[in-house]
């Protein structure tokens, strides 16, 4: 569990982060979202002490971050940034093994870990281990950057706009990968972004920053349904709110007995996808499969009723 306790950062007269208190549960993704200058990156960098807080403290699993020397603290906390920050003169393998090497792992263990992570990120170890970052595509570089941050099995992973430099299609894939890997490893992640879409897509909880203050910290559904301030509402986007809400709800929630024509959808797909299918093909319901077995349907009417609940 990560506890951020009344943390403040001032630079001379200006206050970058103003008394933020927030808790992130182990095994969840918390996305910190805000416009530029909202203090979101400073907040993130105070957690691994790349910036020292002016006041307040951060506790990781109950232990204050001030109890450990900064460089030792940082080796326990994964860190991935925009533009990946890979070392251009080291191979992919050496990049991923950088933190384990700092921690004095044995060579065999580092090598095994590198191969394990490359496989986890769908990169063939034999093909990628000995390449240099400049020989990879942007999406591959970004995956290696995240793999490097995960290498020493950190208590916590900090990510600062990790997908900012990727084009939209590759970014969506990278987000899905991150979600999949986080579920598999049970990692605790704090991720900073300016993109509300990304926050809603990835976050178990979303923290919205504005002018150095934390203005709302809630589940994505609450953020969409009950934005705390006009700025949050603005970031969610009034027009898209119903669709964003539906995108968070799986078909399984509205599954009912019956049949429907046309192509079936899996129960994990979102109501937004089902709505789109209904509108596009002129159907009033779509058939649903659970683990590949036909199991009922979701109706257009039920989706509409669900959207009206606003939660």
């Amino acid at each position, binding site marked *: 569990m990560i506890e951020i306790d009344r943390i403040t950062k001032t630079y001379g007269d200006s206050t970058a982060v103003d008394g933020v208190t927030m808790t992130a549960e182990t095994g969840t993704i918390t996305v910190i979202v805000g416009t530029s200058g909202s203090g979101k990156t400073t907040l993130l960098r105070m957690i691994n002490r790349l910036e020292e807080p002016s006041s307040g403290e951060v506790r990781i699993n109950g232990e204050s971050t001030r109890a450990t020397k900064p460089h030792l603290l940082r*080796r326990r906390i994964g*860190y991935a940034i925009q533009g990946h*920050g*890979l*070392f*251009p003169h080291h191979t992919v393998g050496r990049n991923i093994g*950088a*933190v384990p090497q700092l921690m004095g792992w044995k060579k065999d263990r580092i090598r095994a870990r590198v191969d394990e992570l490359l496989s986890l990120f769908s990169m063939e170890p034999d093909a990628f281990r000995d390449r*240099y970052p400049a020989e990879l595509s942007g999406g591959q570089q970004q995956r290696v950057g995240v793999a490097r941050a995960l290498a020493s099995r950190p208590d916590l992973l900090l990510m600062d706009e990790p997908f900012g430099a990727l084009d939209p299609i590759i970014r969506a894939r990278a987000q899905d990968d991150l979600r999949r890997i986080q579920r598999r490893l049970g990692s605790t992640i704090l991720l900073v972004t300016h993109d509300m879409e990304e926050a809603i897509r990835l976050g178990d909880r979303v923290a919205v920053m504005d002018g150095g203050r934390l203005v709302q910290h809630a589940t994505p559904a609450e953020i969409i349904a009950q934005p705390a301030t006009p700025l949050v509402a603005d970031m969610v986007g009034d027009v898209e709110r119903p669709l964003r809400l539906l995108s968070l709800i799986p078909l399984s929630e509205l599954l009912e007995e019956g049949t429907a024509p046309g192509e079936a959808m899996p129960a994990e797909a979102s109501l937004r996808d089902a709505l789109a299918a209904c509108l596009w093909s002129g159907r009033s319901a779509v058939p649903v499969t659970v683990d590949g077995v036909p199991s009922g349907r979701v109706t257009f009417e039920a989706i509409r009723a669900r959207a009206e609940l606003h939660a």
Partner: protein
Amino acid sequence: MTAAGRSAGRVARGISPPGALFAVLGLAALLVPFMTIAANRIVAGEGVMVWRLATPAAALPGVACIVAALLVGLRTHGQPLRLAGAILGLAGLLWLLVQGAPALLADAGDYARVSPAIGFWCLLVILMLLMADALAQMTPGPLARTGLLSAVLGALALILWSGALSPLSILQEHAGRSGAFADAALRHLALAFGSLAVAGAIGFPLGILCHRRSGLRASLLPVLSLLQTIPSLAMFGLMIPILGWVGDSVPGAQALGIAGIGFAPAFLALVLYSLLPVVGNTVAGLAATPPAALDAARGMGMTPGQRLLRVELPLGLPVILTGLRIVLVQNIGLAVIAGLIGGGGFGTFVFQGLNQTATDLILLGALPTVALALCAAIVMDILVDLTRPTPKEAA
């Protein structure tokens, strides 16, 4: 466009522009004196044209080689052939010297001297440029360049050792003082490489400090730049009173060889000149690390020392080595001036030669200096290439 114009265009496309320049200049150089013969080592000599060097039969193969080299050099492609042509041309030059020198000396007096003249030097430069042009387009790797440099130096050593060129005046000058020449060579190397080592030992840590503290950088670099602007003669002159005073007033200094003239002041002047390139390039090299990589290095828990050793230094090494290359080439040249204040080195012959108006004695000091600087530049370039942080195909 007329048919003639089109065909002219086609021909022009087939001719290498530098090759055309080399051919015109090279053919012109064949029409000026190739060697000079003088009654003794002091008086001005009399120019001798290529076709008067020896019997036409003896001179012809050499001239043919040179002309062939210039013609092959006109091509735009087939660089290995152009390179081979240039080497053939250089062999032709050598042939003419070997044939011409004894023939000219045969019916001259005992004190007569023969030397290469303007025509020879022009052709030498042109053929070497042609060779460099062909090589540049072949882009040989570090290993190939090392091999090539060794081959050229080996061939040069073999020619000098064989004695084929010993009738030439410059080698006559050498024969009279071969012991002094070896001493001067060692002294010259000690001045150039020693000052480089000391400048590196001082400048390298200073550069790292400057990188870490912008305050120090802002005050130190202008001082070093100022040192760099002092004219070299003035710098060597300034060292005389300063080190003279040190030698007289600091106990034990004279025992260490510190005095107003000699090795110490020359060495110190070279070190001072070297500091700016070493410090400046160290700072620039360390600053060239991508900011994201540096942030990642901090964020993953590297200490400042680990960041320096694992990230900043390896990435900055090519720039830092480029600084050392500048220093080395600069110091090999500047060390000539040490001869003026008794510091030894090849400069000794240059200044003796100037006093005696013996051109070939000046050349005995100047030519090895030029050759040394050239070799140092090539070797350092190879080292810079080898230390590039990523393989070339990845860049």
